[in-house]
C-alpha cells in the first residue's frame, strides 16, 4: 500500500515537473509587449492632457485617466484657444472626418464630410488645429489629382470653425508624390507645418516650413539634412520643439531651438532627447516642460514622457509618465493649464 502511494506520488510529481518545464520555457520568451487600458499614470502631471489610444481619446488629470470618447477611430485632438472645445479626427476604413467635441468628449458638430461610395473618391482629413483666435480650423486634406489617380498628397486647408460655413481655403501646394504637407500649426505670424521632398538620390527629407498666407511662397526653417518634423511652439513663441532624424531611418531625436517667427529664423538647436524614438512633442501651458511620446523599450508601444524645456533653464532627465500603455504617436498630446 505504502509503495503504491509513493509510486503514484512520484508519477504525479513527474507530470507536474513536465508541465512546470513547459511553463518555464514560456516564461523565457523575450517578445511581446503589454498594452493596458489607460487608468492611471506613474507620476502626477500638472494641468490636463488629452491623448489618443486605440481609437479613443483620454483625459489625464493628476494621475487619473478618463476615457472621453468610445473606441471608434478617434485621434489627434486639439484644443480651442480657451480650452472649452476640442477638434479631433474620427478615422474610418477609407476616410477620416473632423469633428468639434466638448471638453467632455461629446460630439458637437462635424466639420467635414469625406465619405464616398467609390473607394478612391473618399478623402482623408488629419491634424486639425484651431487658429489662434479660434475662428478657423486648419487641417491636412487630400484633394484629388484628376490627371493621376495614383497620386495622393495631403495639402493644408483651413475652414471656418463655424459648422454652418462650408468654404475651405487651400494654404499649401505639396511636393508631388511625397505624401504631402502635414501637421499644420497656425500662429499669428503665419502657418507652421511639415513639408516632404525627395532629393536626386531618392532620399526623402522633411522640413519645418513657415508660410505667411494661403498660397504664399513660404520659408523652410530647417535644412533638408536635419529631417525635422512635428513642430510645436512654446506658449510665449520663443522656442520651437521638433523631432529630427538627421538622415537616419531609426532615429527620431527631440530637438528644441529658439525661434523668431516674425523674421522666420531659428537659432542653434539643442537636442534634448536622443537615442530614442520620439514623437509628437507638445509644450506645457507654462512652457516649462515638453511632453512627448516614446517607447519605454526598443520595439515597444509609445508611452508619455516629459522633459524640462530650455525655458525652464534647468537641465533635467526625461520622466516616464506612463507604462504599459500604447498611445497613438501620430496624435500629439494636448496639454492645458499650468
Amino acid at each position, binding site marked *: 500500500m505504502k509503495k503504491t502511494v509513493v509510486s503514484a506520488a*512520484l508519477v504525479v510529481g513527474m507530470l507536474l515537473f513536465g508541465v512546470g518545464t513547459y511553463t518555464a520555457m514560456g516564461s523565457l520568451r523575450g*517578445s511581446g509587449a503589454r498594452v493596458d487600458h489607460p487608468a492611471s499614470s506613474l507620476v502626477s502631471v500638472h494641468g490636463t492632457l488629452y491623448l489618443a489610444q486605440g481609437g479613443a481619446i483620454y483625459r489625464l488629470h493628476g494621475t487619473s485617466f478618463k476615457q472621453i470618447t468610445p473606441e471608434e477611430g478617434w485621434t489627434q485632438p486639439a484644443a480651442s484657444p480657451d480650452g472649452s472645445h476640442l477638434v479631433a479626427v474620427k478615422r474610418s476604413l477609407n476616410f*477620416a472626418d473632423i469633428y468639434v467635441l466638448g471638453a467632455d468628449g461629446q460630439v458637437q458638430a462635424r466639420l467635414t464630410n469625406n465619405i464616398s461610395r467609390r473607394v478612391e473618391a473618399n478623402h482623408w482629413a488629419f491634424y486639425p488645429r484651431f487658429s489662434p483666435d479660434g475662428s478657423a480650423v486648419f487641417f491636412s486634406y487630400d484633394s484629388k489629382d484628376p490627371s493621376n489617380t495614383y497620386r*495622393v498628397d495631403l495639402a493644408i486647408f483651413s475652414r471656418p470653425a463655424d459648422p454652418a460655413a462650408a468654404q475651405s481655403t487651400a494654404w499649401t501646394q505639396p511636393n508631388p*508624390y511625397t505624401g504631402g504637407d502635414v501637421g499644420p500649426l497656425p500662429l499669428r505670424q503665419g502657418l507652421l507645418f511639415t513639408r516632404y521632398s525627395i532629393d536626386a538620390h531618392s532620399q526623402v527629407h522633411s522640413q519645418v516650413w513657415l508660410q505667411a498666407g494661403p498660397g504664399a511662397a513660404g520659408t523652410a526653417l530647417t535644412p533638408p539634412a536635419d529631417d525635422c518634423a512635428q513642430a510645436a511652439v512654446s506658449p510665449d513663441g520663443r522656442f520651437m520643439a521638433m523631432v529630427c532624424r538627421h538622415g537616419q531611418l*531609426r532615429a527620431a531625436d527631440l530637438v528644441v531651438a529658439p525661434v523668431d517667427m516674425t523674421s522666420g529664423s531659428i537659432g542653434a538647436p539643442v537636442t534634448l532627447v536622443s537615442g530614442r524614438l520620439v514623437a509628437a512633442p507638445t509644450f506645457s501651458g507654462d512652457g516649462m516642460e515638453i511632453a512627448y511620446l*516614446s517607447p519605454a523599450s526598443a*520595439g515597444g*508601444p509609445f508611452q508619455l514622457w516629459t522633459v524640462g524645456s530650455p525655458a525652464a533653464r534647468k537641465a533635467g532627465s526625461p520622466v516616464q509618465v506612463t507604462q504599459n500603455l500604447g498611445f497613438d504617436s*501620430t496624435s500629439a498630446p494636448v496639454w492645458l493649464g499650468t
Partner: protein
Amino acid sequence: MSRKPTYLPRVSLVIAGFVLAGLLGVGAYFLPVFEVAATSAVSSGSIPDPLPASTQPFTVLLLGSDDDAKFAPDRYNTQSMILLRVDPVAKQATMLSIPRDLWVPIPGHGTGKISTAYQLGGPTLAMKTVADNFQVHIDDYVWIGLSGLVNLIDRIGGVDIVVTNPVLDDYYPSDINTRDPYAYYRVAVLPGAVHLDGVHALQYARSRHGDIRGDFARSERQQQLLLAIKDAHLNAADLPFLASAFSGEIKSSIGLDRLRQLVGLAGQFGGPNISRVVLVPPYTSEAQIAGQDVVLPSWPVILPLVHKSFP
C-alpha cells in the same frame, strides 16, 4: 549475514522519470516549431549545399509573396526579394533588395520579371535565378506569405518604425481574408515614429502607388521593417509561439539549429553594422517590354557592388 538493500536502481528510475518528463515538457513546448520544420522541409537535392559552420558567413534569400486567390496554390509572385548576408563573427549584415520587376534570364524559362521565378519553379528556381544573375552563392531561403508576416508582427507585439513621409495609397489590395482578390481599399500611414501592428506594418511595407519612387521606396520600407522585427528581442523560447502563428505561411530550407542561431544573433547586430542596398538608378533603369513595366539591370555597375557586399 543479511544483504544491505540497494536503492540505486529505483533512484535511477525516478531520476530518469523526471528527466523524461522534463524532456517531454520541452518537446511539447517546441512542438509547433517541429511541425513548421516538417511542413517547410525541401528535398535536399533541390537545394544547394547545407549551411556552412556557424562561424562562417552565410547568405539567405528572403522571399515575400502575395498568397491570395489570384494565384494557384504555391505558385505566387514574389513581391519582395531580399538577399541577406550574415557574418556571425564580424557581426556584419548586408541586405540587398532586388526589384521585383527586374528583367532577367530565368533558367529554363527565357527572360522575364525576376518575381515570376518562384511562380515558375518554386524556391529552387527563385534561388537559382538570383544566384545566376547576381553571381552569388545562396545558402538558404525563407519564404513568408502576407498573413504569415501579419501574424509574426502581431505575435511579437508590433514593431516600431520611423515613417519618413506619409504613405498614402488609394488602391491598396484588399486580398487577405476576402472573397474578391481584386478588391482594394485606402491606406494612410502617417509619418513619424510609430508602433505598428501586423496589418499596418504590412500596409507600410507593401504600398507603392502613391510614391514616385515606386518599388524602390517599397524596398526601403521592407528593409526597415526587417530591422524593426530584429529589434523585437526574440530568443529561442519565442520560436514555438511564433511558429504556431504561421500555419503554412512560412517555408524555409533553414534547419532548426540555424534558425535558433539566427534568432540569437539578431540581437547582437546594431544599426551601424547593417548595410542596406537598394538598386536605384544608375544600377537600374525603368523601361517597357512587351507592354510590361520592367526594371532593366545595369550589370556592369551592379556586379561590382554585389561582389563587394556578397564576397
